[in-house]
């Protein structure tokens, strides 16, 4: 365990040095991250111009959902998604060998190698927006609700990672599908809308996407005090199942990896 902490500390420093080497790019990345953050808030504002509430969510709550989404996705893009994006390229170009030869767990090394600090600006934006909205809605935060909120954010992070990894593993079987990672970025948008929205659709159409609908809805419900234990247990069970499934598919796919000629 100590070895992993040491590796991660060095990776944090190395990624920070890379960031500082291209400062103009950092500025553009921050602008870009902010643009994506504002984008979703704009979408909700536009969609709710004439509709005060949808699916039992008021306009303020939908904006809060957008704020929490930005907090969540800021952390996810900073610490996880770029690694999975990178691994798709490594498989496509046949360079996965370098990852597999490292003396640490392959799944972990594919997850922690790259850190995109600029994405954390989305977390800051989302946190600011959420605080403002909570104050506006006169919702008071308690220590337990904040702890529970971050616990669900972490669970959501694990769930989204477990959702992405089996798709990445698929690329080992068909490297030409490396653009599936772009589709995963789009699929993550499913979590930006309330879970109740998908209840109207036939289960066979959205069954695969249902785990994603829990990711943002749960922590947001904690903030607006609509939290329920049944929904929480649903999230924990889905996390466990998806986590095990992701680990199994990754190991299974690696057994079929045939290096650069695959």
């Amino acid at each position: 365990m100590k070895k992993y902490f040491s590796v991660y500390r060095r990776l944090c420093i190395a990624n920070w040095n890379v960031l500082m080497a291209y400062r103009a790019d950092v500025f553009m990345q921050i602008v870009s991250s902010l643009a994506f953050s504002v984008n979703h808030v704009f979408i909700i504002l536009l969609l709710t111009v004439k509709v005060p509430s949808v699916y039992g969510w008021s306009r303020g709550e939908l904006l809060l959902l957008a704020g929490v989404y930005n907090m969540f996705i800021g952390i996810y893009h900073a610490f996880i998604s770029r690694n999975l994006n990178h691994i798709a390229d490594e498989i496509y170009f046949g360079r996965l060998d370098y990852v597999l030869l490292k003396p640490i767990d392959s799944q972990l090394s594919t997850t922690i190698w790259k850190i995109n600090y600029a994405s954390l600006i989305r977390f800051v934006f989302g946190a600011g927006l959420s605080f403002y909205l909570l104050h506006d809605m006169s919702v008071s935060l308690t220590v337990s609700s904040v702890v529970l909120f971050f616990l669900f954010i972490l669970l959501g992070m694990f769930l989204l990672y477990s959702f992405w990894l089996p798709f990445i593993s698929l690329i080992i079987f068909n490297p030409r599908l490396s653009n599936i990672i772009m589709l995963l970025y789009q699929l993550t948008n499913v979590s930006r809308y309330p879970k109740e929205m998908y209840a109207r659709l036939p289960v066979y159409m959205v069954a695969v996407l249902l785990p994603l609908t829990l990711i943002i809805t749960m922590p947001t419900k904690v903030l607006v005090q609509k939290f329920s234990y049944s929904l929480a247990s649903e999230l924990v069970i889905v996390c466990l199942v998806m986590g095990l499934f992701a680990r199994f598919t990754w190991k299974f796919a690696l057994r079929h990896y045939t290096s650069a000629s695959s």
Partner: protein
Amino acid sequence: MRYVRILALHIQDVFQNRGRSFVYFLMGLLNPILQLVFWSGAIAEGGGNGALWTFREMASYYLLVTVVISFLVVHIEEDVAFLDIKEGLLAKYLLRPFSYFISKFMEELPWRMTHGFFAVVVFVAFMMWGRISFPLVGEPTRIALAVVITVGGLFISFILKMLFGLLALWTTDFWGIWGVEEVVFWLLAGIIMPLSYYPSALAAVAYALPFSYIVYFPVIAVQGSLADIEMIRVIGSQLIWILALSMLYRIVWKKGIEKFTAVGQ
């Protein structure tokens, strides 16, 4: 003729990568569908008339947006910026006796055709499955005008995205510009909802910029929501944008190519 041969080769390439092509198509499909689901709930909760528009109008708009995005929204800027400029592949194009601009157009066209085909299949399937009849332009003259607007949208989209891609000649990294461009395009092209439902100030900005001529106007032209005179006005505006962007492209290409170092930026 030589460009037709290049096109034929790229068509083969796209068919070889049909799975990849389908994944790209799904990416364009997802967001309009999410908005359609969002609105369908809003309309249902309002008893069918509480929102801005009816389900039929909404479904027609978002499905046509999917078709138009698939046919017209070019993604060549990523190739230009990341592969050609950042990784230095532009050098091979410069050594060939073909125009870079036309070569890239021939590369992109088969992708647009394939995605458009997938989108039309989805559109027809939805019409048959949902048993919904959508308003579509009917008279031959108006169909011809709608086709001209659609083709105009493709040209604007292509030149604009080529211009964005060439900006990588001045920047080390393109991710930042790409992100801003994506967001601005999303907001101002009419993908989120029809521009006529936007707040007036934002709608005025959207009408003034070229993005709406790539998605919004082709969609409402195909829907038959534009009067003849408005269609001609849109074509006129598209021509002005094509000319202006082409001139800008020539300037940017001339200035930018002097900065290209052939081994990646």
